[in-house]
């Protein structure tokens, strides 16, 4: 049985690292890549010089003396299943028994794996070829080693189930016997990849590799890291947005047993102690005088009015036909204001990072979506070169975008540097909620009009929302001055409507922003699908019939919707007081149709009983993993739709814990039935596309039940009356 802790602590990799780097202290890096394996992430699977004492065949593949196959994965496991799906790609080409495979996070090593960030629902679709090639390259090296041993030609041998076979003489050599020699051979430039018809793993429901460690408590998340001599710190941040530390008196905190130091760092004042509880106890005694922030008037209502104030000043993102003239001349019109709040990621494992900065260099243990970015952060703070920074990626107790930021890395590195000891920074739940980075709030001014037959003629959507890309200074995410994430799903609204006008306005607000699962689609899927149903209601059209008609040019959307309709029994009678709501949304290259069956409690609270979900992701590696992600995306979207709202009052975030930021519980969970369409279209993403449609599906069911749309999220807060 694989050592379940190896995900975080792979001692053999550690040894290899020290061998190749000459030790952190020496700062000596041996060039270990063979030609053809460039810096730009090419998982070209080159062997390291002098490698293989530990069975390492290439950067991705290690064969233990017992014949276990250990695969290094340079994407972060946050529940979305990359330690399984990417391992499947390598194992497919490597020709090994899945039961012998385990996978670990690679070290954050730009030279070997390129920049490592996990997001955009891109891990599998962007690496489908690269990880298969890594497996194929290792396979070819192992076969070459066997051919050399037997003095036979490549064509006479085949790889099969962890062995190389010479059929003519019925000789076999196990990979474990070949690994050392294989690693010393030149890596093949273009190893042949299997034809789809020959796949044994891809497209099959194999067991997830990370499950066993997750049912016995042995899985190592960031908070489970224990480094000898480690201290634990909590960082008290300014309560006001834009606030600062004026002064602090550490004496009372320092008097608490176990508290070792109280130090100021850029993000706040840290209480450093022997353990979590001492840090917490010291923090309660800490006296900080804060310099107030300049936003005392800011609350949720002010955010809405600030958005509304600029909504007409936006930049045009799409302009088909003449929406203005068509609207003016239309007989049936609709105007509506759709508003959405800030959201927190609320991963169940709060943010944390463990750092050790000493004379040898800097080592991090961190649940990060972007370990190479964490290394860059550490480099900036310590001034150390990349060869002296080592990043171990633990399992992530949820990510959803939040863990691509590095605020917690900054804190840990600053503190370890100052304390000259390993430090684990832990955000309390309240820290995590209040010091969070949020999905933007925003406003949509919607205008729609119908033609004489009641079909949509005009779609005019003016959006105002703070720009994530501007906040991150990520200019590649801006096009013609428009934050592409803010208009995703709207700029490419798929419905055949002759006059479509879309504009977007940035809003300057002091709330920190970040990508949140499915980003702009997380709100745009709701706005577009609900306003579409409002137009259907105005024109007396059935929402499914109308979608089928207006999606004539989008056969994949139609196919997904048709399957959802069939599986949900849409149109058939439901129990008294229930209705079906429909939504379809494309994001990250996948199309998802969802039908929610909803009722309203006496107080008007929506209750979702069942969700039928169809995802067309083009091509599928791990079908069960896809269904997992649909279930997960729906649950996260459902929590946001019904209850998600970060509260701001007097210039402070006041949402603090799960009592004021509820997430769905088991008794609020609908039955979810997911169906996967994979008919050979370009491969789409999976981690995020399940989230956007659900709010629209629920909202549309409520519209059907009450005749009244709910135009402000969360839906569960604005209780409708039946």
């Amino acid at each position, binding site marked *: 049985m694989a050592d379940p802790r190896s995900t975080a602590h792979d001692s053999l990799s550690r040894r290899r690292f020290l061998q190749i780097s000459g030790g952190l202290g020496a700062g000596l890096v041996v060039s270990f890549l063979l030609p053809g394996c460039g810096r730009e992430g090419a998982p070209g699977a080159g062997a390291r010089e002098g490698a293989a004492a530990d069975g390492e065949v290439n950067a991705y593949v290690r064969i233990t003396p017992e014949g276990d196959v250990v695969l290094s994965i340079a994407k972060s496991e946050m529940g979305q299943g990359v330690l399984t799906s990417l391992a499947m790609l390598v194992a497919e080409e490597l020709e090994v028994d899945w039961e012998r495979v385990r996978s670990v996070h690679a070290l954050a090593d730009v030279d070997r794996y390129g920049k490592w960030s996990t997001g955009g629902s891109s891990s599998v679709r962007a690496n489908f070829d690269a990880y298969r090639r890594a497996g194929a390259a290792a396979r070819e090296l192992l076969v070459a080693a066997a051919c050399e041993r037997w003095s036979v030609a490549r064509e006479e041998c085949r790889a099969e189930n962890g062995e190389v076979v010479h059929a003519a003489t019925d000789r076999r050599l196990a990979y474990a016997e070949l690994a050392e020699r294989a690693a010393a051979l030149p890596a093949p430039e273009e190893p042949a990849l299997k034809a789809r018809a020959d796949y044994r793993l891809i497209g099959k429901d194999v*067991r997830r590799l990370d*499950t066993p460690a997750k049912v016995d408590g042995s899985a190592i998340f960031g908070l489970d890291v224990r480094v000898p001599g480690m201290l634990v710190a909590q960082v008290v941040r300014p309560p006001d947005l834009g606030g600062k530390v004026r002064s602090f008196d550490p004496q009372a905190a320092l008097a608490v047993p176990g508290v070792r130091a109280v130090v100021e760092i850029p993000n706040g004042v840290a209480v450093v102690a022997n353990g979590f*509880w001492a840090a917490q106890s010291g923090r309660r005694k800490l006296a900080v005088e804060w310099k107030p922030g300049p936003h005392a008037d800011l609350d949720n209502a002010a955010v809405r009015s600030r958005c509304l104030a600029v909504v007409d000043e936006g930049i045009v993102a799409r302009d088909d036909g003449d929406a203005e003239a068509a609207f003016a001349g239309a007989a049936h019109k609709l105007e509506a204001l759709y508003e959405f709040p800030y959201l927190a990621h609320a991963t*169940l494992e709060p943010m944390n990072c463990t750092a050790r900065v000493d004379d040898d260099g800097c080592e991090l243990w961190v649940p990060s979506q972007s370990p190479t970015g964490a290394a860059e952060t550490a480099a900036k703070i310590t001034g150390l070169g990349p060869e002296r920074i080592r990043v171990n990626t633990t399992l992530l107790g949820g990510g959803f975008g939040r863990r691509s930021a590095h605020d917690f890395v900054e804190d840990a590195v600053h503190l370890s540097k100052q304390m000259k000891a390993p430090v684990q920074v832990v955000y309390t*739940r309240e820290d995590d909620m209040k010091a969070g980075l949020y999905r933007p709030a925003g406003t949509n001014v919607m205008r729609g009009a119908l033609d004489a037959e009641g079909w949509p003629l005009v779609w005019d959507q003016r959006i105002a929302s703070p720009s994530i890309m501007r906040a991150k200074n990520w200019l590649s995410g801006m096009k013609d001055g428009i934050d592409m994430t803010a208009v995703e799903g709207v700029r490419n609204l798929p419905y055949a409507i002759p006059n479509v006008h879309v504009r977007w306005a940035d809003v300057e607000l002091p709330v920190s922003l970040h990508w949140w699962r499915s980003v702009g689609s997380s709100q745009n899927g709701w706005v577009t699908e609900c306003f579409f149903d409002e137009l259907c209601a105005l024109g007396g059209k059935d929402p499914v019939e109308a979608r089928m008609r207006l999606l004539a040019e989008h056969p994949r959307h139609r196919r997904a919707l048709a399957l959802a309709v069939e599986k949900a029994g849409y149109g058939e009678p439901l129990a008294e007081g229930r209705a079906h709501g429909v939504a379809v949304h494309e994001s990250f290259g996948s199309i998802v149709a969802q039908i929610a069956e909803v009722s309203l409690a006496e107080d008007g609270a929506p209750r979702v009983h069942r969700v039928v979900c169809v995802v067309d992701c083009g091509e599928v590696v791990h079908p069960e993993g896809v269904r997992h992600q649909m279930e997960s995306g729906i649950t996260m979207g459902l929590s946001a739709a019904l209850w998600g709202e970060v509260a701001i009052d007097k210039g402070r975030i006041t949402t603090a814990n799960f009592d004021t930021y509820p997430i769905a*519980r088991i008794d609020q969970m609908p039955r979810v039935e997911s169906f996967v369409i994979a008919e050979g279209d370009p491969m789409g993403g999976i981690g995020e596309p399940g989230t956007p449609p659900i709010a629209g599906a629920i909202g549309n069911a409520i519209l059907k039940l009450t005749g009244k749309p709910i135009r402000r999220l969360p839906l569960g807060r604005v209780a409708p009356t039946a």
Partner: protein
Amino acid sequence: MPAYTLTVNGEPRQFEAESDTPLLWVLRDVLNLTGTKYGCGAGLCRACTIHLDGEASFSCQIPISAADGRSITTIEGLSPDRSHPLQQAWIEEDVPQCGYCQPGQIMSAAALLARTPAPSDAEIDAAMKSNLCRCGTYNRIRSAIHRAAKKKAENATAAAGAARTEASHHG
């Protein structure tokens, strides 16, 4: 610091701690049993669920002074080898995603099955509704609990059958 004694996963453990230290942090920071998770510190997410004298309890809300001398079971002590029917069912139903809440989920479910061997959906809801999962694995959790209950019943029947066979041989 005062000294305390606990029986943890069947072993007596003696240690010193501040009297207000929550059991959670004794387990994680003093006894190095990190399977029990911190999620909210306020009894709102139940990631910290353990068994205190057999009862599912949230360890983040119990000061060590209130647990002295008592018996604790954590996820590490549920079985030595993942053989508990719930752990097996969790693997069979492919329950975990990020996995962070799952030790707490499993400990709540284990306490449920100990007193209600064949729980209905409503009984599962009542017992499990305080355990939060951000990844939405709830439907699989429900299936896994039903599966484990069935397995336990089968095991019990088989054991009873074996006992009868044994008895008849001696009779």
